[in-house]
């Protein structure tokens, strides 16, 4: 098993708000690591043999890397806009490849069957054509002009609406989605999925959101997102093989899966293969 090119990326390893001087233990790509708050109020992360790892705090979480990140942590400028509520959804462990967890997040076609009567419902199953590109300058995967009919798009939504989405993959195990904001038409709600790869087949998932919603209690916002993600969890734990197949032929995409196709291609191009299956077995 090799961590490959993904070793030099940033990964979420905890909620910043939960790290204290007592510290906490977790795992990153097979290595035990420890997080603690220093007397100066910073966060330190080290491996079991005492090696200090690089640390950055951003988007509500502590990020670290076993290697040497060459880029700063990706920015989410929209999340910094004043008036948004930042929602720390907390961790959920999933027995799946970190890459499968991200790919599921990029997918809308499953809404009617997995998030029934919330993010989708039969007969509104059609996925209209949308646009996908790999933005070379930012080196990110983007899907835009994604539209889907949703019975209850957000906690603050009442009744069904056609929701607009944009998806973005700024790092191999992270995705940011922008969706129609029911409370403030014209703005985008920001919903993210940050995935901590524990091993190639086990991950801790940290959903996080930056929403315009002054009405809904914070706990209800957390629970709405936990409900959605836990509906996905039982799917993710039952895909065969557990690792994401990067070679074509093993699985069959259609036009609705263009984001997934681009994501897999981008992973392969960068040798981001931790959690991937390369040769069809």
């Amino acid at each position, binding site marked *: 098993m090799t961590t490959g090119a993904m070793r030099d990326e940033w990964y979420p390893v905890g909620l910043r708000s939960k790290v204290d001087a007592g510290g906490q233990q977790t795992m990153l790509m097979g290595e035990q690591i420890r997080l603690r708050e220093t007397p100066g109020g910073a966060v330190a992360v080290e491996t079991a043999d005492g090696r200090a790892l690089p640390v950055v705090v951003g988007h509500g979480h502590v990020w670290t890397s076993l290697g040497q990140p060459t880029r700063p942590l990706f920015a989410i400028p929209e999340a910094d806009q004043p008036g948004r509520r930042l929602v720390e959804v907390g961790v959920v462990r999933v027995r799946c490849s970190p890459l499968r967890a991200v790919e599921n997040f990029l*997918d809308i*076609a*499953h809404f*009617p*069957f*997995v998030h029934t009567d919330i993010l989708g419902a*039969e007969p509104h*199953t*059609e*996925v209209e054509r949308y646009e996908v590109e790999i933005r070379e300058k930012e080196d990110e995967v983007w899907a835009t002009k994604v539209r889907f009919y949703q019975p209850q798009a957000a906690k603050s939504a009442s009744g069904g609406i056609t929701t607009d989405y944009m998806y973005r993959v700024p790092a191999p195990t992270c995705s940011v989605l922008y969706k129609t904001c029911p409370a403030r038409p014209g703005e985008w709600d920001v919903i993210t999925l940050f995935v901590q790869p524990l091993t190639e087949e086990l991950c801790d998932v940290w959903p996080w959101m930056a929403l315009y919603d002054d009405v809904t209690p914070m706990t209800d916002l957390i629970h709405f997102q936990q409900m959605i993600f836990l509906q996905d969890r*039982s*799917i993710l734990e*039952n*895909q*065969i*093989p557990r690792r994401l*197949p990067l070679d074509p032929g*093993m*699985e*069959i*995409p*259609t*036009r*609705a899966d263009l984001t997934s196709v681009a994501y897999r291609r981008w992973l392969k191009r960068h040798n981001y293969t931790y959690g991937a299956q390369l040769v069809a077995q």
Partner: protein
Amino acid sequence: MPVALSSDIPPATVIPLQTPSGPMALWRSASGRLSMSADRCPHRGMRLSHGFVRGEALSCIYHGWSYSQDGHCLRIPAHPDLEPPAAIRVATATVCETGGVVWLALAQTESQPPRFSHHTPLRSLAFAAAPTAILVALNGRASADGSMQGELAGLSVILLCAPQPDGTSMVHVLAPSDATLEERLAISSATEALRRTAETALATEAAA
């Protein structure tokens, strides 16, 4: 190889099975036809045994793709106007149902599954033990057709053992066709006791 009892798979249901050819999904259509397919959706690998049976098709729970009994993809809900290409299909296997037992044909075989004229299926249960250990615990006889005969609760029984890839066995218990309700209940309890014996023997062996 015996894989399930007919009564455990009513119309419009699907169940998961472990077989020597890998995980399989056994499903019965609304009209009662039984089929078996690989337990992996060709789209994104979701286990089809988590799906649902509508009418004569098996649908995947993830994106709702549905498959016919011969494995062809019939419908892709994300593209309602698209006729799914014939190349999209899920692998299938041949099953047959006799005397209330569902059998999987392991290879191209002409031979028919065994018939048991005086016994009918009771229940299936998993033993954390290999068939050899079960035969010892039963103190029974193995037949050429792979079945075991013995006595449980003082009544003649037939056990059909399907070894699982993880070393456990799925055991299908057949009771005398003329057994009363009380006798069937007694055989069911005695099978639980047999399981404790077989599994304890295994644990004792492991400890030795």
